[in-house]
Structure formats: C-alpha cells, structure tokens
C-alpha cells in the first residue's frame, strides 16, 4: 500500500502553468549507456585535464579525487573528431571510450537499446539526447519503424514559434450536450490496474497526467482511494471481469472506458496471478487474497450490437456527465466495429493494436492475433470518413506507441490522439525484461505489489520522470508541426501525404528534429 507520507513532496505545477523539466536521475547507481568511458586507475595521474575538457560533464572531481566517469553522458565515437576528445588529450593515456558491452543485451526488436536509452534520457532531462542514440524508432523493421516524416526545407518560411502551436484535443465531438474534455496533449495513459502495477506507479502516472492536463485509465482493478484527489484526470475502466466497478467510482470520473478487448491478448480474458493478489488488491477487487483472478472474454452480457448500446446507455444513465470510450482490438472487421460503437453512442473509439500492452499475455497472442495498429488506423479512419461520421467520433490509437514520433505518425495515419502505457513504464526505468508476472513481480519495483519492491521507487521520482518525458514529447511534436508548417495537432490528422514509407521510397530521408551541433 502507498505510504501517505510520500504524497507530500509531489512535484506539481501550479494550475495553468506549464511543466518545466526537473532533473531526475536514474534510481540505480550506474545508469546504463551505449558507450563506456574507462579510466585506468593505475595509469591516471589525476591531472584533471579530462574534467576541464569534457563539455558533457562525464568527468567530475571531488577535491583531489576523480569520480568514476559518467559514461551515459559521453558523446561516444562522434567525439573522436572534437578538439576536446578526452582519449586523445589524456597525457597518461589512461582513458578509453568504447561501446558498452551491456548495450547489446538491452531491449528487443520493438524497444531496442537505443529507444530505451533515449527514453530514459528524456525522462531524466526532459530533452533529447545529443548522442547518436536513436530516439524516434525501434528496430522492428516494419510499421512505424519504416515510416518517416518528409519535412520541407528549413530555409525559407520562418519556423512557427512553439507558443503558437496547439497540442490540445477535444474528446467530445458528438455535440450531445455532455461536457467537453480537452486534453492538453494528444495522448493519455492507458489502463494499468492496481495489482498489476504498484500504487506508486499509478500515482506517478496520474500526477504527470495532471501536469499536462490529460487523463489516465485505471485499468480493470478498481479505483483506489489514493486516486480520489485526481478524479478529473481519471478514466475508469469497465472490463469483462467487472472487478472493482462500483456505482460511486463510475460517478467520480469524466470518462468511462469500456474494455471489450485489448491488443496484447485480443479475444482473450485477463489473468492476474495469485501472487499479485495481496490483501489490498483483493479488497479493491472484492476477491480472495492469493487467488488468481480471471477476466472472461467477452462481456457475457453482450452478444449483439443492441446489447452493446444497452451497456453504453446504462453507463450514461449512471453518470450523466461522463463521456464514453469503447476500447476494442484490431480484427479484420475493425472498421465495422468502430462504426458500430459510434452508432451505439460512444464518444471515443479506441483501437488497441496487437503489439503493445503492458500486462501478462500469452506470447502466441501478442505475436499472432489481430493486426498491428499501423494498418488499423488508416483502415478505420477512411471507413469512418466514407460513412460520413469521422468528424463526430474521436479515434484513439494504442498498442505499440513508443515515442513522440510514433504519436505523430499515428495521428498522421488518421488517429485523433493516442493512448500510451509502456513508454510511461520505461520512463520509470523499466527495461522490458518481460518478467512482470514472475514470482514477486517486477524486480525494479514498477509492476509489483510486493511491499519491499514497491519501495524501490518514490512517487516524486516517478511523477517527475514521466512529466519530463511528456515535456520532451510535447517539444518534439511542436517541432514536427512547426517544421511541417502546422499550427495545431488537429491539422495533422490523416495527413498521410506528409509521411513516406521506406518500402515505397528510395531516396534518403532524415526526420531528425534536433538542432545538431
């Protein structure tokens, strides 16, 4: 359970003030890195020349003593050309810069070492790394990783000032008299239930959402009391197991999310291992401590589109001010599902692609069932347009959105905004070992309810790291929009003409937005 004392020192922004990055270093002593700077203790004469030369702060001194080099700040091999390159300048030849042997073990195809390192960097500093670590794409070899923005030449028209660019998105486009929700950034947090992740993780995410005026979904695990102060930033989820769903929690929030399916395990139910059902989790879910919990698939009360509408009407009745979101996966007929959900009365239709997800899921389902989100977005976007209802529904994409560039690409493919999950966890220094569900849960204290492990992370650290990441993402989105000559994220929706796909494009293209030195 959360220790209430920890909530006191929350990094927060005064109402209406934008978040400014707060330097929030790694929780672990040795940050992982692409390059390693090695100083031979036996050769070093402690002259301090490296401390003077390195502009990146790799070397620091404490009195006469030279501290261990901070490898993760090193520019890497690019530095060889610089006049201040430490290795060339060291009078005792005590220094070496080389690729860190651990780098090759980091990550997987989707979130490769570079994407992890660059996301950690953004979460620490709130800006983009100056090294050659790739921050836009992973290494999956398809989908977002083969799409690029085609920026017009920078020369000519002056770049639009970031202050004149809007990232806000309205979620209610039905004009049905229900309140509007305007989120400040084109993303919100996907559902991760209390039980699957720690309360510190949940509150960190909600706090960051508050800082950027957006939302977070509770996932299917109830609505812990610790979240009551954040009611206006919560989306509560109603999923097939109905765990923790109560009238009063439905009435607290501004948006209710119906989870019909989730991308990581499309067509399959959820499963919380018995180990994770601690007394607090069991109380929240009204179940028994230590007993595994299964969510069925599908809703056993929905077998027709009429049942679906009945469900939505029922929610609207319970909470007359809430918007309704319908979260579905990506089958062959995902376009029909989206249209059906609109006619049943949903404000938001969320497509959850097959490659994302944070919770435990069978490997076979993650890899094989349902289509990747990159195909589903344009399919649904075009179908809704043809149906003449695209302007009345808010289309959310999720399931594999890893970077600010993924956000922009998803929107250019036709989404209004996206939902993210794993990126938040990576900001908290998840390294995607995929062992969230084994034994006591996450050994890094993110996706666990084990009290000893939960204590590895404080909320102030978590909220600042996620907020820094959001800051860096906002900056990148504004930079992308500015370079494209757009003043609002709304203008990017469906602009596939601004994208190219490397399979169909044979010229070199570079959509790096950093001002390189």
């Amino acid at each position, binding site marked *: 359970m959360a220790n209430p004392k920890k909530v006191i020192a929350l990094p927060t922004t005064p109402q209406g003030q934008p978040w400014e990055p707060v330097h929030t270093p790694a929780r672990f002593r040795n940050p992982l890195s692409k390059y*390693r700077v*090695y100083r*031979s203790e036996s050769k070093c004469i402690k002259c301090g020349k490296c401390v003077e030369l390195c502009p990146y702060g790799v070397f620091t001194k404490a009195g006469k003593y030279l501290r261990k080099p901070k490898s993760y700040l090193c520019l890497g091999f690019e530095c060889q050309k610089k006049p201040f390159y430490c290795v060339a300048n060291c009078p005792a030849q005590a220094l*070496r810069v*080389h690729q860190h*042997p651990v780098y090759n073990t980091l990550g997987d195809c989707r979130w490769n070492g570079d994407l992890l390192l660059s996301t950690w960097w953004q979460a620490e500093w709130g800006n983009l790394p100056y090294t050659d670590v790739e921050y836009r794409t992973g290494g999956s070899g398809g989908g977002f990783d083969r799409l690029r923005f085609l920026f017009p030449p920078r020369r000519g028209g002056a770049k639009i000032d970031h202050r004149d660019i809007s990232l806000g998105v309205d979620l209610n486009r039905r004009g049905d008299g229900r309140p509007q929700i305007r989120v400040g950034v084109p993303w919100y947090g996907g559902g991760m239930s209390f039980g699957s992740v720690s309360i510190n993780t949940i509150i960190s995410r909600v706090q960051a959402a508050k800082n950027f005026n957006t939302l977070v979904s509770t996932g299917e695990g109830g609505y812990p009391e610790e979240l009551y102060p954040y009611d206006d930033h919560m989306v509560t989820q109603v999923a097939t197991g109905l765990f923790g769903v109560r009238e009063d929690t439905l009435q607290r929030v501004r948006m209710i999310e119906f989870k019909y399916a989730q991308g990581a395990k499309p067509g399959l139910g959820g499963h919380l291992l018995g180990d994770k059902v601690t007394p607090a989790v069991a109380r929240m879910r009204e179940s028994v401590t230590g007993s595994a919990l299964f969510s069925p698939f599908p809703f056993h009360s929905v077998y027709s589109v009429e049942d679906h509408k009945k469900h939505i009407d029922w929610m609207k009745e319970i909470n007359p001010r809430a918007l309704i979101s319908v979260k579905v996966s990506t089958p062959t007929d995902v376009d029909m599902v989206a249209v059906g959900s609109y006619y049943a009365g949903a404000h938001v239709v969320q497509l959850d692609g097959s490659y994302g997800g944070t919770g435990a899921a069978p490997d076979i389902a993650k890899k094989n069932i349902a289509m990747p989100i990159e195909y589903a977005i344009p399919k649904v976007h075009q179908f809704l347009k043809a149906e003449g209802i695209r302007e009345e529904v808010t289309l959310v994409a999720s399931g594999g959105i890893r970077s600010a560039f993924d956000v922009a690409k998803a929107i250019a493919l036709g989404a209004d905004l996206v939902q993210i999950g794993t990126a938040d966890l990576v900001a908290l220094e998840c390294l995607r070992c995929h062992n969230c569900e084994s034994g006591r849960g996450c050994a890094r204290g993110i996706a666990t309810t084990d009290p000893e492990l939960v204590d590895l992370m404080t909320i102030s650290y978590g909220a600042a790291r996620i907020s820094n990441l959001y800051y860096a993402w906002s900056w990148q989105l504004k930079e992308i929009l500015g370079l494209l000559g757009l003043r609002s994220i709304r203008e990017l929706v469906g602009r596939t003409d601004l994208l190219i796909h490397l399979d169909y494009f044979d010229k070199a293209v570079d959509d790096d937005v950093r001002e390189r030195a």
Partner: protein
Amino acid sequence: MSMEVVIYACQQAVPDPEALRALWSAGEVRLRVLPEPCSSKVEVFQLLRTLGAPVDLVWVIGCEEQLCRFNEGSHRAGGRMAHTKKYLQEIGLEPARVGRSLVTPGDESALAAIVSEISGRLKSLGPSPLRRAPNAGAQAAAT
C-alpha cells in the same frame, strides 16, 4: 583412457570457434570449445570444477590485455589463472593442467600455435589423476 580438453574462448579473441575445432587433430582426445563473451567470464570455481569433471586440461583464450572489450577482463582472467594454479599446487594437482593464451582478436595463425601448445602440454601431462579417483578428485576440486 580417452582424454578431454576444454577451451574457454573469448568470442572476440576467437570469433569462429569452429575454426579452432578444425585445427584439432588428436582424434582420440575430445575437445570442447566453449565461446564466452570475455575470458573473465570464467571464474576460479569454474576452472576448478571443470578440472574436477574430470577434464584433463583446461585452457582459456583471451584477448591481449589492452584489447579487451571489457577493459580489465583479460587482466582479471590472468589473476584468476594464477590463483587457480596456486590452489592446484596446494591440493596436489599439476598447475600445468590449466593454461591461458592471449591473442590479437582474429589472428588465426596464433590459434594454430595455441593448439599445438595444448596438445604438447597434454602429451607431457597424460590423463588427469582425478580420472583414477573421480569422486575424491571432484570433491577436492569442488571446494
């Protein structure tokens, strides 16, 4: 009695373990080449337990110290080798049953020399005494 040699080979020093195996001609002696990320992966207890398996000769191939990908790996492996030899002396087993070579990564001609050194060493040592009393030997080496 058939003998066995185990070579722990740093993958940078020996990028192609198959080439090393191909150099081995003593058909009656079994050779195992285990690629390792660095010669410093192999710890003292591992060297001792390998001898206790029993194996007649254990060899570690690493990179020249200044070329080690882990910087200090090769250097540390050297220290471990010395420590292991000292320990073997104490328990009364020939220290020559463990050995180490340093190569420039990718230098295949060096490998041929190493193989001939290993076979020469094996010839002069003969089968491990632990083969005669495997249990006692294994226990001694396992400590």
